[in-house]
């Protein structure tokens, strides 16, 4: 859930989409400015944070990757819990990955927070330039379909390329702008456990 305080907003952001659509690549490009052509399936790091300054606020994204649990439809409900934003990623050259993206949107609308900001990212836009024009017809049809779908379901749509960095920062920036600035007061915000230095046996115990 996005929480505000002196215009500092913490927002959990989740990525969803078909295996190989480029979820991790988008995050790596955004967080580290890197792109790896043959990115291994997500291993070892599935939690990033990155801060963005928008006009009136500083937004700290806590970005969750699926850690591959989407592969056999075994994504845990905690993944959606408290998410303020989601990027649903598909591969613009792959109709099937767009169909999967629509399923993820349904899943989010069923499981997620109703005020969630959702972005639909048509990734691998660089492949469009690389292909011959004739081969693009089906890709363009898919593009129009995606735009219409996004509009109809209250998402915003962008074509992105983790490879060239096109529109990657823009997607996150747009989400940061759209996050609600004022959240209803929450009495159940909870606390995060931290490691801390050597134990202080406090005097506030029954045994002192």
């Amino acid at each position, binding site marked *: 859930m996005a929480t505000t305080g002196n215009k500092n907003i913490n927002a959990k952001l989740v990525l969803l989409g078909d295996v190989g659509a480029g979820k991790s690549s988008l995050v790596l490009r955004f967080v580290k400015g890197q792109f790896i052509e043959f990115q291994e399936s997500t291993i070892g790091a599935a939690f990033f944070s990155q801060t963005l300054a928008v006009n009136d606020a500083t937004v700290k994204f806590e970005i969750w990757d699926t850690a591959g649990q989407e592969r*056999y439809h075994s994504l845990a409900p905690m993944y959606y819990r408290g998410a303020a934003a989601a990027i649903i990623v598909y591969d613009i050259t792959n109709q099937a990955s767009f169909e999967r993206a629509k399923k993820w949107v349904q899943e989010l609308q069923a499981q997620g927070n109703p005020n969630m900001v959702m972005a639909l990212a048509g990734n691998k836009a660089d492949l469009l330039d690389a292909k011959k024009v004739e081969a693009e017809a089906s890709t363009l049809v898919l593009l129009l379909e995606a735009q219409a779908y996004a509009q109809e379901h209250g998402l915003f749509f962008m074509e992105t390329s983790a490879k060239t960095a096109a529109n990657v920062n823009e997607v996150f920036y747009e989400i940061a702008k759209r996050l609600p600035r004022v959240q209803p007061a929450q009495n159940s915000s*909870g606390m995060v456990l931290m490691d801390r230095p050597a134990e202080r046996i406090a005097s506030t115990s*029954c045994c002192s």
Partner: protein
Amino acid sequence: MDEEYDVVVLGTGLKECILSGLLSVDGLKVLHMDRNDYYGGESTSLNLIQLWKRFRRNDKPPAHLGSSRDYNVDMIPKFMMANGTLVRVLIHTDVTKYLYFKAVDGSFVYNKGKVHKVPATDMETLKSPLMGIFEKRRAHKFFIYVHDYNETDPKTHDGMDLTRVTTRELIAKYGLDDNTVDVIGHALALHRDDRYLDEPALDTVKRMKLYVESLARFQGGSPYIYPLYGLAELPQAFARLSAVYGGTYMLNKPECKVEFNEEGQVLGVTSEGETARCKKVVCDPSYLPNKVRKVGRVARAIAIMSHPIPNTNDSHSVQVILPQKQLGRKSDMYLFCCSYSHNGKFIAFVSTEAETDHPGTELKAGIDLLGPVDEIFFDIYDRYEPVNEPTLDNCFISTSYDATTHFESTVLDVLNMYTMITGKATGSSPFISHPAMSKLFQEHA
């Protein structure tokens, strides 16, 4: 799944998920499957519709209870000791970043027919009716001894070897009466029965120190914390750890049949006609029913109420311990209550190690403390422990969850299994400072 794995884990209960996470972090290739289409196995949390399906055989909870998804009703109700082993495992595996916690408001004890707060501050101790004023002075001296006791510093031992002196002998030295001993043994040291009195006192002293350190950690009214969205977040968070380190997850896999060779060693696991070959299998008792035996039963009641448990200072989350002696039983009874995500409704549990076949009658003493309830469900489940020899068949089976209200025994079982599976640490295991833990901490720090 038609591949070779180092370990196949069956069941996504908390124990199996912690192990799956630790083994993946160790670099082993792990496949984790569950026959259910949800995470958590026996330790899952149910929403209202799931709860009705399980206990009322229909999916129509009454509308006045509100939205089904606002409920996370824990099937194994336990709190976490704020400074206990589970918290340490969470921090050292960095899984804590996926979770939010809430301090539990109060810890109470049933004594002479009434519910009393277990004092959490000096002021509460002074005011507490649990002990008379002279008894408080005697108890204070004992608490100072426990507080100062340091296993490695003989000067703090007051000439006693606590690995030999029994708890009864130690307490006798301070002249405490039976009533105080009952409170100390059951509400602070969290023993389940009275066997500890004739066992070496070291364990009890360590348990008391854990209680006090946990109490100090968040300055709350109890030594307990609880995941904000229910206990099922815990297995999910460890499953995520496993997945992040390459573990493969498959839910909703029917059958999950463990295959053996002629020598009785694990070959793999078959589901839907495919076999995942593996060297070792880790699972809960339900996946290998021929390799476990029944060791007891837990009786419990789950109640939905419109008020907190009476006489607990309106605490929204609370534990009440009913020591066995106060009820004329062999084992303690526990009340557990939590609220916040339930629309102003409170979920209370009454549980105990079953001594009869009639949970309704047996749990009456606890249920009577709840006041009026909107809905109540009764349940009794069997507890199992493994009887196989893991060095021969390569099957590592967890023990069923016990009736205790916290996770210390749960994590102990996990650490013992981790040691057996990896051979990474050896030796017997005192309650808190398990050798596998220090090993774990060095590796993942």
